[in-house]
């Protein structure tokens, strides 16, 4: 499989704080990578540099074989993003919002695309609802519809399930995995929910203070650290996150 995203020595300093510290990684086409790490580890900062919301202090992002910095708008057409901290305008209807983004992303046959996404995420009944009236589960699903509108090749999700109850969270993560498999979407996914990472991700990357501490297949990592669960590994690494030999770099 070919490489879709390569990050080389990426660094982001905020004054004296180093949020991302000479981080390098590469992601293959179709791979689903989970970013795990304590609060403030640098996951959001990393994603936002890949999205062009933040300019790196140093380092390089190569997307689709080209420098992201030089082809930002061209690349943004082929990617998408959603998170718990972004929303679609609350005073418009679900349909108006999706139509708007379909037009921005120049989606072909937008009506059909919107219909099928609303069906897929089981919110077709809310087509005419005011977005602000949706429950957080519904609005998360709507955000995902927006994020999938342009059939992104690269999808970045920053804690998409953070405000969901366990049942809805489970449905959402299953759906996301299913859609990603069907369409061969490459995905970067952050979550503090270990279940999310275990269910969705082919590979997890553990970040501590802006650096990769370990990475690999979730199940193998649990074994490698001789812990009972991913959560225990998380606590261990978050508390004393020394750099560990990267044994399982696929």
């Amino acid at each position: 499989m070919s490489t879709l995203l390569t990050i080389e020595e990426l660094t982001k300093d905020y004054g004296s704080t180093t949020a991302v510290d000479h981080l390098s990684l590469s992601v293959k086409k179709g791979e689903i990578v989970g970013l795990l790490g304590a609060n403030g580890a640098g996951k959001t900062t990393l994603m936002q540099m890949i999205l062009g919301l933040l300019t790196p202090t140093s380092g390089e992002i190569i997307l689709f074989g080209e420098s992201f910095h030089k082809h930002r708008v061209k690349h943004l057409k082929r990617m998408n993003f959603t998170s718990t901290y972004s929303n679609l305008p609350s005073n418009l209807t679900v349909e108006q919002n999706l139509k708007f983004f379909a037009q921005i992303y120049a989606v072909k046959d937008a009506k059909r695309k919107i219909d099928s996404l609303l069906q897929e995420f089981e919110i077709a009944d809310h087509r005419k609802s005011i977005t602000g009236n949706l429950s957080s589960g519904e609005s998360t699903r709507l955000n995902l519809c927006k994020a999938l509108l342009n059939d992104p090749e690269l999808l970045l999700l920053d804690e998409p399930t953070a405000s969901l109850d366990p049942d809805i969270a489970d449905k959402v993560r299953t759906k996301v995995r299913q859609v990603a498999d069907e369409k061969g979407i490459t995905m970067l996914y952050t979550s503090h929910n270990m279940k999310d990472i275990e269910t969705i991700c082919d590979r997890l990357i553990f970040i501590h203070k802006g650096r990769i501490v370990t990475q690999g297949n979730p199940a193998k990592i649990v074994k490698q650290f001789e812990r009972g669960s991913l959560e225990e590994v998380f606590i261990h690494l978050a508390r004393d996150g020394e750099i560990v030999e990267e044994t399982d770099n696929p």
Partner: protein
Amino acid sequence: MNLNVIFALTRRYLYLYTRNPVRMIELIFWPSVELLVMGFLTVFIQKSSGSDFGSFIRFLLGAVIFWDVLFRSQQAVAISFLEDVWTRNLLNIFVAPVRTYEYLFATFCVGLLRVGLTVFILTLLAWLVYAFNLFEFEWSLIPYFANLMIFGWSLGMISTALILRWGQAAEGLAWAVPYLLQPFSAVFYPVSILPTVFQFIAWLLPSTYVFEGMRAGLAEGSMNYTYFGLSVLANLVFMVISGLIFAQTMKAARQKGLLTRIATQ
């Protein structure tokens, strides 16, 4: 430049206006109140002084309407940006294939439409209540209005840059920026009334030339081309300066993480 993107953004801002009744009221209510207060004040002064105040009411009503062109256009640019902040949609826009100038251009279009609506309402009101006919200006209205609207765009970009730089705490500035310049713009009185230092500042602003030109136009019944030319020139300078300020602020925002901060606070 992608016209589809600009069209989509503009249409969405219009949706926001029509979906939110408070926005609509703001569009109609404030300018009308201002016009009525100014109008009745002049009528009162006119009656109590007993002198011939006939031209003053025309100057003042003209000034209120002209001022609103500048103000509404500035507001459209700044408020459109704030709408995206308020609805937590800003990041969705900035991770979409939207170029900064396309985004700005859409807010300019919203400005144009807002100005159109306000002018329509005020013209009608001034005509019904005070028998003031804005169309006395005939075709010269268009260059006057265009200059004020474009200056409003410049001020809108500066206000947006301030909000981006200092966060939502600076929201008040979105309203304050035009009023900061109002005393110097000779809106309700001629530049000659101002102290010399203020006069110097006044002649740097495109708006001053429009208001002076408006009064000259009302008094002489013809358009003053010198004022018009100077206004266009000053406008060009302001457009370039505020465009650079905006671009520089966007660059700084991407370096300091301001986009995320303002979008999530």
